[in-house]
């Protein structure tokens, strides 16, 4: 993935492209806006015609047809990204009145107003002389009759999906005001086989399920992978040689290394927000404590000191505070303490038990797993414990992970396993922070322990 050349990106100057003086001036501040803090919004109708090939063939035989195919695929991926958010509704292409999708002239807005398209995406794909793929697009406010975004992106044709995700990200950002999360990956545990001897492998895929591949071979049990916020690295738990330890996996090289030389089991790893440290638990003589390891100096620091179970640490985006799971008060609850030391303060006070706290990349919320009355839930609360909301419930839901924009969570859901040996297969789901738009994430096999990557660079 990162072996491919980077996508270069240029904001198109409106003046330059319309230097011929088309008689239209940008209006006042755009009205087109989706408020994503409300859950049950009416999805915004958007038209995304296939991106056309506007001439470039790279001098290659078949270049035009190739560009046309890529243009169609790119528009399809953009549309799927936006529709999955629940915030957009893609207008069926056979409803289009016109396909006047030139980048060089203003669209005939009336034709798009008639089918009630509020937003229109017009794009083109071109194969350049060196074989590069150049994609240009404009996002139009149909009723406001003005351009909201214009971008040109260049990369190798093999990267066309990333281009599509970047375009979807910029459309999402312009219309919602929030950063997108489409140009991201998900690492998770792919599972199969009987429950007693489940085979588990690390797998990675684009956030939409494309480019799926396995990272480990299934010989050793693997659990709880997490993405580095800054590098192409994953930290996870592996039972290599029957010794459960925290490992580091380099996605580019495929190299795996055990982290540290601990006398007991290490588990529940998570990167610090700056990517320089891994915090994790180490269990020895029946006591689990939280440690931090500096990935450059390999120095280890102990962060908790209590005979209770202390696990599942997660740092705030500023790295100054840590939320973790402990049963020091008698049952599993969430605690916050300063990374530098000091006393732990309990923040979860609702009914039931709380686990797997994960600090949002925005810092405003902590996601968690909750267990109460025989049911599991995925919820969020503010770092002081106030404002608790449960977003999803089920027989077993666990392991929330944040999209990098802090607006969407992914987790896994598993049903009750009955005597008839049905059920029990875990699957990945995403849900909006509002509690709406829960969607299954398609995976080749059963799937658990998802971890969302940061936005690619």
């Amino acid at each position: 993935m990162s072996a491919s050349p980077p996508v270069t990106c240029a904001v198109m100057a409106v003046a330059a492209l319309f230097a011929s003086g088309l008689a239209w001036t940008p209006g006042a501040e755009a009205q087109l806006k989706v408020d994503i803090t409300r859950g049950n919004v009416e999805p915004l109708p958007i038209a995304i015609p296939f991106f056309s090939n506007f001439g470039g063939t790279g001098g290659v035989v078949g270049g035009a047809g190739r560009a046309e195919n890529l243009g169609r695929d790119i528009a399809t991926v953009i549309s799927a990204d936006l529709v999955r958010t629940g915030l957009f509704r893609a207008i069926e292409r056979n409803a289009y009145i016109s396909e006047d999708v030139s980048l060089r002239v203003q669209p005939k807005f009336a034709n798009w107003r008639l089918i009630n398209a509020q937003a229109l995406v017009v794009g083109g794909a071109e194969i350049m002389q060196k074989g590069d793929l150049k994609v240009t697009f404009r996002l139009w406010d149909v009723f406001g009759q003005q351009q909201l975004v214009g971008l040109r992106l260049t990369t190798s044709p093999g990267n066309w999906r990333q281009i599509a995700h970047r375009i979807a990200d910029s459309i999402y950002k312009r219309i919602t005001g929030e950063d997108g999360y489409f140009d991201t990956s998900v690492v998770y545990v792919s599972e199969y086989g009987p429950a007693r001897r489940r085979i588990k492998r690390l797998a990675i895929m684009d956030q939409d399920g494309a480019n799926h591949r396995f990272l480990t071979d299934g010989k050793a049990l693997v659990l709880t992978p997490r993405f580095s916020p800054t590098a192409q690295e994953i930290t996870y738990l592996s039972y290599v040689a029957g010794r459960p330890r925290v490992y580091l996996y380099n996605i580019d090289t495929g190299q795996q290394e055990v982290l540290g030389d601990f006398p007991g089991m290490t588990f529940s790893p998570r990167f610090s927000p700056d990517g320089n440290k891994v915090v994790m638990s180490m269990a020895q003589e029946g006591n689990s404590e939280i440690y931090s390891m500096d990935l450059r100096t390999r120095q280890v620091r102990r962060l908790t000191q209590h005979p209770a179970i202390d696990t599942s640490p997660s740092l705030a985006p500023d790295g100054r505070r840590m939320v973790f799971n402990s049963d020091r008060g008698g049952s599993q609850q969430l605690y916050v303490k300063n990374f530098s030391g000091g006393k732990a303060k309990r923040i979860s006070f609702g009914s039931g038990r709380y686990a797997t706290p994960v600090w949002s990349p925005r810092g405003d919320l902590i996601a968690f797993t909750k267990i109460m009355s025989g049911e599991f839930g995925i919820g969020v609360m503010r770092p002081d414990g106030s404002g608790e909301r449960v977003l999803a419930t089920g027989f077993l839901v666990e392991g929330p992970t944040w999209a990098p924009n802090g607006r969407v969570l992914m987790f896994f859901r598993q049903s009750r396993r009955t005597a008839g040996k049905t059920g029990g297969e875990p699957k990945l789901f995403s849900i909006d922070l509002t509690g709406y738009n829960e969607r299954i994430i398609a995976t080749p096999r059963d799937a658990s322990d998802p971890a969302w990557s940061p936005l690619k660079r």
Partner: protein
Amino acid sequence: MRFQLAALVLAGFVLAACETTPDGGGSASGTGAATANAGGSASSSVSSQSLSGGVQPGSPEDLAVNVGDRVLFGFDRFDLSAEARDTLEKQSVWLKRYPNGTIVISGHTDERGTREYNLALGERRATAVKNYLVALGIEPSRINTISYGKERPVDPQSSESAWASNRRGVTQIDSMGAKLSN
């Protein structure tokens, strides 16, 4: 070569035993691949011997059948019940009878907890078993522990009785195919 053959015979024996007795679970990950390989090539040639051999003293079956290789725990608990202590006392007598070789104690949980917490809880349970055996005079250096959390249920169903049997600490001979000697 002779050693290899013996290992195969014993591995086949263990496989046969697994058919009739509850799976210990703890052995699954560490040595599962080796067991599968050995079983595939040896099962037909050793079946008659393992059946006629019966339970060999000092073997994993001896521990499982005649002593009791596991203790059960309450929900989210790691204290040992009277029944569990009784089992461990029998285990300690057995282990003293066969003082050569090491054992591994695996700690397990039911599925009604979160993965990471359950890893810690399984480690607590394995340690509770270990500490009791040490208190009964077993050398700590003979005992290794491992936690599987909720990863290796012995009964995969989602029911109270399955969860009760999955909350366990299992004592096993450290290397598959081996038996303790006196």
